[in-house]
C-alpha cells in the first residue's frame, strides 16, 4: 500500500461519508424538531435533484436558479407532508411507531411517482465550479468534491448557529423538547413543526443536489440514501445535526479503509461490525451526552 492509494481511499471515504452526512443532517433536524423518524429523507434528495435536472437540462434555466428552485421544492414538499399528514396524526394522538410507517409509505409513494412521471433513467448533474482535476498526494480530486466538502461544513455550522442564535431556531428547539411548555410561553408549536419539516426538506434537497454530480439520481436511490443517512444520524445521536455529520464521515471512512485495508468482499461485514461495536461502547452516539442533548 502506498501513500497515493491511501490518500485516494481516504478521499473516497470522505466524499461518500459526506453524502451520508448530508442526508443524516436533514434526518437529525427533523427528528430534533418533531421527534418523527423520517424514513423518506432520501426522497427529498431525489425530488430536489430531479427538479434541478428538469429545469436545467429540460428548460435551460441557469444552474444557480435551478438549484434555488430545487431547494425550495424540498421545503415545499416538507411543509406539505407536515400539514397533510403529521398534523392530523398528532391531533389524533397517534402512537409513536405509526410515524415511521407513515414516512415509509410516503417514501414508497414518492419513489413510485418519480418512476411514473420521469421514467427509470438515471441523471447526472454538472459538477460545481470547473471540470478541473487536482492532484493531492497522488490522489485525484474533482473540483466538485472540494465544493462538496466546503458546503457541507458551512451547512453544518450554519445549522448550529440557526438553532442557537435565531429566535425561530430557539422556538423550534423549545417546541420539540416540550410542546406543552412551549405553548404556555407563546410559541406556536404547530407552526414550528411545519418549519422543521421545511428545514428538513430543504436540507434533503440540498443533499441531493450536492450528491448528484457524483452519484446519478433515479427513482430507486432514495431508500438507499435514507438508510445510510440513518446510520450516520444514529451514530451521531439522532437529534444532533453536527453528530450526524461526524457520524457520516466516520461511516464513509471506515468503509473505505475496510476496502483498502482488508478486502472489498468484506466491506459491509467490517463496517457494520465496527458500527455495532461503537454503538455498544457509546450508546449515546459519538458525541456522547452532548450528542443526545441537541448539538
Amino acid at each position: 500500500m502506498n501513500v497515493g492509494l491511501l490518500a485516494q481511499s481516504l478521499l473516497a471515504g470522505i466524499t461518500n461519508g459526506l453524502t451520508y452526512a448530508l442526508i443524516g443532517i436533514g434526518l437529525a433536524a427533523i427528528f430534533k424538531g418533531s421527534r418523527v423518524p423520517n424514513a423518506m429523507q432520501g426522497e427529498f434528495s431525489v425530488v430536489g435533484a430531479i427538479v434541478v435536472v428538469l429545469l436545467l437540462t429540460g428548460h435551460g434555466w441557469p444552474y444557480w436558479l435551478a438549484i434555488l428552485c430545487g431547494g425550495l421544492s424540498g421545503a415545499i414538499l416538507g411543509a406539505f407532508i407536515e400539514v397533510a399528514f403529521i398534523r392530523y396524526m398528532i391531533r389524533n394522538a397517534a402512537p409513536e411507531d405509526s410515524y415511521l410507517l407513515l414516512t415509509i409509505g410516503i417514501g414508497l409513494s414518492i419513489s413510485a411517482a418519480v418512476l411514473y412521471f420521469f421514467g427509470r433513467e438515471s441523471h447526472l448533474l454538472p459538477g460545481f465550479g470547473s471540470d478541473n482535476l487536482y492532484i493531492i498526494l497522488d490522489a485525484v480530486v474533482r473540483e466538485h468534491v472540494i465544493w462538496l466538502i466546503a458546503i457541507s461544513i458551512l451547512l453544518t455550522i450554519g445549522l448550529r448557529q440557526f438553532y442557537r442564535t435565531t429566535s425561530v431556531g430557539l422556538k423550534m428547539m423549545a417546541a420539540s423538547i416540550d410542546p406543552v411548555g412551549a405553548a404556555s410561553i407563546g410559541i406556536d408549536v404547530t407552526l414550528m413543526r411545519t418549519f422543521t419539516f421545511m428545514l428538513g426538506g430543504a436540507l434533503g434537497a440540498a443533499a441531493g443536489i450536492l450528491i448528484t454530480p457524483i452519484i446519478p439520481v433515479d427513482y430507486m436511490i432514495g431508500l438507499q440514501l435514507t438508510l445510510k443517512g440513518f446510520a450516520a444520524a444514529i451514530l451521531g445521536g439522532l437529534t444532533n445535526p453536527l453528530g450526524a455529520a461526524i457520524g457520516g464521515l466516520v461511516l464513509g471512512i471506515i468503509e473505505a479503509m475496510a476496502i483498502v485495508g482488508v478486502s472489498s468482499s468484506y466491506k459491509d461485514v467490517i463496517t457494520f461490525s465496527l458500527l455495532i461495536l461503537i454503538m455498544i461502547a457509546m450508546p449515546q452516539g459519538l458525541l456522547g451526552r452532548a450528542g443526545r442533548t441537541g448539538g
Partner: protein
Amino acid sequence: MTAKKTYHGRAPAAFALIVAGVAFLSTPAAAQRSGAEPFKIGVILALTGAGAGLGIPERSGALLAEKIINSKGGVNGTPIQLVIEDDGSNPDGAISKANSLIHREKVSALIGSSQTASTVAIGGLTDPLKMPQVALSGLGPAIERDRKCVLHVAPSQALNAKAILEYASSIGAKKLGALYDSGYGTVVYNELRKLSDAYGIAFVATEKFEISATDTTTQAAKIRAAQPDAIVVVGVTGVPIRSLRQLQMKQTIIAANGLASYETVKSMGDAADNVVFPEFLVGEDPLPHQAEFVKLFHKEYGRFPKILEAVGWDAVHVILAAFKKADVGANNEKVCEAIRSTFKGDMTDYDFSADDLNGIKLSNIVYSKLVAGQFTRLPFQAKEK
C-alpha cells in the same frame, strides 16, 4: 309499511339484474373469435423489480415481433398472440404466472424469463410437460442441461468470459484488473479465473462491489495501484466505469455485455469512452443479416435495439420456426423435436441441439467499442479454437 315492502321487493330484482349483467359481460363474446383461434404464446418477463432493466427491453423486441409476424399473416395463416406476464423479478411470481399461462390461457409455448432463478422455476413446470420454453437468460445451474426443451437465446457466462479473454489476449494484455459486482459479476469472474491460465493472462487486482453500489472509487484505486494492462468490468450500472475513468486510468476497459445498453451509457457520463464490449448487435453498424431488424425496430420505437431487444425478437421467431416445421396443432414432443435444431436469429446463430442448449459460438460474437458515448463496431473477430 307499504314503502318497506316495496323496498324489499326491488332489492332482489336489482341484485339479480346486476349479477346477470356481470355474468353477461364476463363471458367472452363468441363473435370475437369468428376467425381462427389465435396461436397463443405465453411470455414471462421481469417487468418490475430488480430485473426490470432486462425485461422491459426484451418485451419491446417481442412485441415488435408479434406485430411484424401478424402483418405477414401469422404462422400458417393463424395470427399469433403473446400473453405477457410479469414475474416481478422473483421465481415465485414466475411459477404462479407460468401456471396461469399453461393451464388457464392454454398457451402452446412459453418464453421466459429474464433472470436465471425464474427460468429454472418455470422449467420445473414446462419440463415434465415437454412444453417448449425459450429462456432469455444465459444457461444456469446443471439441472438446465437435462431440460432438453428449455432453450436459451442468451449466451452462457462461460462464453462471455471466453470472449473477454479473447479480446484481452488480442491487444497483448498480460496483466488484467477485474472490477465485478456481487451478482452475475461473480459468476463471470469465476469463469474468467478458470480460463485465464490457458490464455497466459494473470489477474493482478480483483475487486468486488455491491450490485447497486453508488461508488467504487476505493476499489478502483486499488486496481490502479496494481497497474494492469487492461481492466475487466462486470456489472449492470455505469458506476464502476465512471470510478475507473475518474481516477484518470487510461487503460482499455473490457466490459461484459450486461453493460451494453444506451441507458447504462448515459449513466457513465464522460467515462463512456474506450470501453470494449463482446456483444452481438451494434445498431449503428449492423451485420448484413441484422439490418432488416434494426430498421424495423428503429421505425417502430425511434431508437436502436441492442442485445435485450434482439433476444426478445429472436425468442418469438424461434418458437414460430418450430411450429412452422411441426405444424400448429402438433403435440409438445413433436414441437420440442422440431425446435432442437439450428436457427439463424437476428441477434446471432443458434444451435439448440447443442449440449449447452444455445450453441452460440465464439465466432458469433460482435465486438463493439464506445467512442465518446457512441457504439462503434470493431473489426476484431474471435476465432473458434
